[in-house]
């Protein structure tokens, strides 16, 4: 299946049970425990990551904390 990750079309193995939670692990996303996830333009609740499915054609954005400025 193909999903768009941070603006880039990405081919992933077929997996009907893929959730935001499993996708974060699968891609080994940095700041996995804190990263904000936007799915098709909507920010997702962290509490629901394990139950929110990611389907073919979805667009996912990972938004990372950047605390610097110094």
């Amino acid at each position: 299946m193909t999903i768009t990750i941070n603006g880039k079309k990405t081919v992933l193995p077929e997996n009907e049970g893929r959730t935001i939670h499993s996708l974060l692990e699968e891609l080994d996303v940095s700041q996995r425990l804190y990263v904000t996830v936007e799915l098709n333009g909507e920010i997702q609740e962290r509490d629901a990551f394990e139950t929110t499915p990611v389907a073919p054609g979805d667009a996912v954005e990972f938004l990372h904390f950047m605390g610097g400025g110094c």
Partner: protein
Amino acid sequence: MALTDSQIERYSRHIILKEVGGKGQQKLLNSKVLIIGAGGLGAPIALYLAAAGIGTIGIADADSVDLSNLQRQVIHFTPDIGKPKVISAKEKIQAINPDVQVRTYQQWVSAANIMELISQYDFVVDGTDNFAAKFLINDACVLAGKPYSHGGILQFVGQTITVLPGESTCYRCIFPTPPPKDAIPTCSQAGVIGVLPGVIGSIQATEAIKFLLGKGKLLAGRMLTYDALEMKFRDVTINRNPNCPICGENPTITQVRDELELLTVCDLEKP
């Protein structure tokens, strides 16, 4: 007050722009911008806002100039080592442009002082280096209805978004709560390429100027990320979050508070 001959010459490249003109330049000269943090981001922000003729620039930072700052904090020079950053910044601003009135605040922003501080300005620019300050600035600006520019950098990557409280996505819409202390490295722990704050800070200064002029399309409702290694800019649309703890449908934050548990190494010198 009309522009003087020397102001007409100084700002001629602005005045010739139809989006600015004499009127827009007057607006800038009558504007007040508060820059919080006189470090990597604050340096280009202050230099460009000074050159642009922002009439009043406030600058808040409790820190003094350190040798390790000079790789990126271009408003501070080698002879400034040991000097309070706000004084060093004020000297450069006034040398660039005597039209600018500078107000210095040699202190960290806190729940106790931030509301009063931002109330005196038209626009606020976040150039701070820690999450406690970034969340505090967001909360204060949202509660006060004060537009501001957020900026964050780390290593080779930066992000910035302009927040129009009540109208556009705020920092807590994206990040409802701060990360646990030490979960995300700081620049002093993980490093930062010296030109990175130059890019992000210059964008933040651009947003301040556009806001004051009322021209163009602000970086509101979308976050710009910049990756210097890939040399890529991305612009991600982010809608307001109905569950945002401060600007959502049922806000739980109704006043500013300090995130004391979040203070990072940079704050250890706090008086």
